């Protein structure tokens, strides 16, 4: 397994945000992580990327324990992540943003710039490469975050609602971009609310609710799962379905 999270729990005081969650990701897979708001998926995500140290459990990346490693160490190991609210470097240009990522593998400016140019081209940001990040709209910023992570040369990318808030046409372009990234051999874990994205891209889906993993399987199995339907739509919906 490329990534293996075993029995992850995270407590904030007496509140248990994640309760004994497991995840195993094989190299080359696309995994979807879904769940209603407050289900604990963001906390679980943060445990995977080194932003939060879990209270119990451990995270292995390529067989190495990275549970207590810093976010920098995660990036160096080959784990890249995007943020739910884009955290681009606003006063730097698009190309400079991507170069910050590229500097992880290239110490010299020329080599980093070359990599960054190749990536802005691939991610469709070439025309905006000289613009400051703050001049981009939300879709552009989300794309820039993906480009920046790509420049670090990751083996695993974790996308935190990277496709949320896009128009239908932007969403199709973004899905195509994620597919291109996958074709490069990069493994993906996608946290997403949009079922279209999960159904189109994910090979397996994990569903979170109240800190637990309540379902796990192929997208088609997940949408028919009673526990998932109840978590998303509530018990009333189940009763309505049962009442003729």
């Amino acid at each position, binding site marked *: 397994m490329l990534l293996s999270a075993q029995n992850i729990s995270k407590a904030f005081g007496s509140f248990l945000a994640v309760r004994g969650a497991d995840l195993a990701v094989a190299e080359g897979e696309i995994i979807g992580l879904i769940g209603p708001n407050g289900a604990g998926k963001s906390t679980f995500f943060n445990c995977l*990327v080194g932003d939060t140290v879990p209270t119990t459990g451990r995270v292995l990346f390529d067989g190495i324990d990275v549970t207590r490693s810093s976010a920098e160490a995660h990036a160096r190991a080959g784990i890249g992540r995007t943020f739910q609210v884009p*955290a681009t470097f606003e006063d730097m240009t698009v190309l400079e943003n991507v170069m910050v990522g590229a500097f992880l593998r290239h110490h010299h400016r020329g080599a980093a710039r070359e990599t960054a140019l190749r990536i802005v081209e691939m991610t469709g940001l070439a025309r905006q490469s000289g613009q400051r990040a703050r001049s981009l709209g939300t879709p552009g910023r989300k794309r820039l975050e993906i480009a920046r992570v790509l420049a*670090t040369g990751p083996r695993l990318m974790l996308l935190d609602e990277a496709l949320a808030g896009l128009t239908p046409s932007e969403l199709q372009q973004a899905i195509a971009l994620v597919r291109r990234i996958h074709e490069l051999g990069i493994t993906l874990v996608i946290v997403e609310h949009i079922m279209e994205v999960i159904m189109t891209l994910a090979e397996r889906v994990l569903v979170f609710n109240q800190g637990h993993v309540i379902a796990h399987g192929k997208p088609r199995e997940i949408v028919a799962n009673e526990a998932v339907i109840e978590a998303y739509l509530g018990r009333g919906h189940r009763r309505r379905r049962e009442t003729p």
Partner: protein
Amino acid sequence: MKSILSPRVRIVLLAAALLLFPILFSGAFARDIGVAFLLAAISASAWNIVGGYAGQVSVGHSMFFGVGAYTPLLFYHLWGLPPVAGVPAGMLVSLCLAVAIGMPTFRLQGHYFSMATIAVAELIRIFVGTWDLVGAAIGLQGPAVGRAWWDLTFRSELPYYYIFLAVLAVVLYTTFEVERSRFGYYLRAIKAGERAARSLGVPVRATKLKALMLSAVFTSVAGSLYSIKTGFIDPESGFGILVSVQMVIVAALGGAGTLFGPLIGALLLVPLQTATNTWFGGGGSGLTYILYGGIIVLLARYEPGGMHEWWQRVAPRLMRRSHAA
């Protein structure tokens, strides 16, 4: 819209202006202002590396300035050595101080970091003010009359002007190289967002510490130049909070995080300070605080990016207007 002058031409013109200034303005008063301008520009450029590029607003840089200022005169006072011999020692002590201060304070962010730097600088000032070895509250004096040229006690301002100019050139060239390097990109990324920078593999604390060390060394040199030129140092003129505040204001006024911002800031602030001192004389003591306070309020309200950013916004409009006319 591109400017008529390429960056290279602008740099050549700036260098020529700085080189020719004391020749064109040979009066002692003008040269004195020139030297004060260069010293303010060196200090603010040094502060700019950590405060401007990395966004770690230290308001305690006087600790490095003071160390740099005291060490040359201490070398003279204790062993009769030429003050200039104490400059490398000042740099080394400042470097160690930067490591000792940076390691714990870089756990803090934003205002907390700024407050911690003020506290440390004030503690050092109070300590130095009671330490007999370094002259306590009275301070230290350098050689009144130079024993040889290496005592660097000149009657004219001219040699000081060119020594200071050479140091400024070194600081600016280093900053230019930093700006273009991986280190420089990392500093700007940290300023924009530490969490995002970390997620891209930026070693945030180590990068901030390196920036503080580099900044401390150059600030120490600025302090040494000051004490060698004036031949005197006391706790207030070396470690006083106004020394730190001046660095911050000069850089912020011109444009923190830009190569020439501190120069622009010094160009505006030093003549203004000299003018207020001349007009109000001794009756204007405390006016510096009002001036600094006024500048902080105006910058925060109208132009947080400083004059450099203002000019970048205004220049294209002026160019368009002149083309249209």
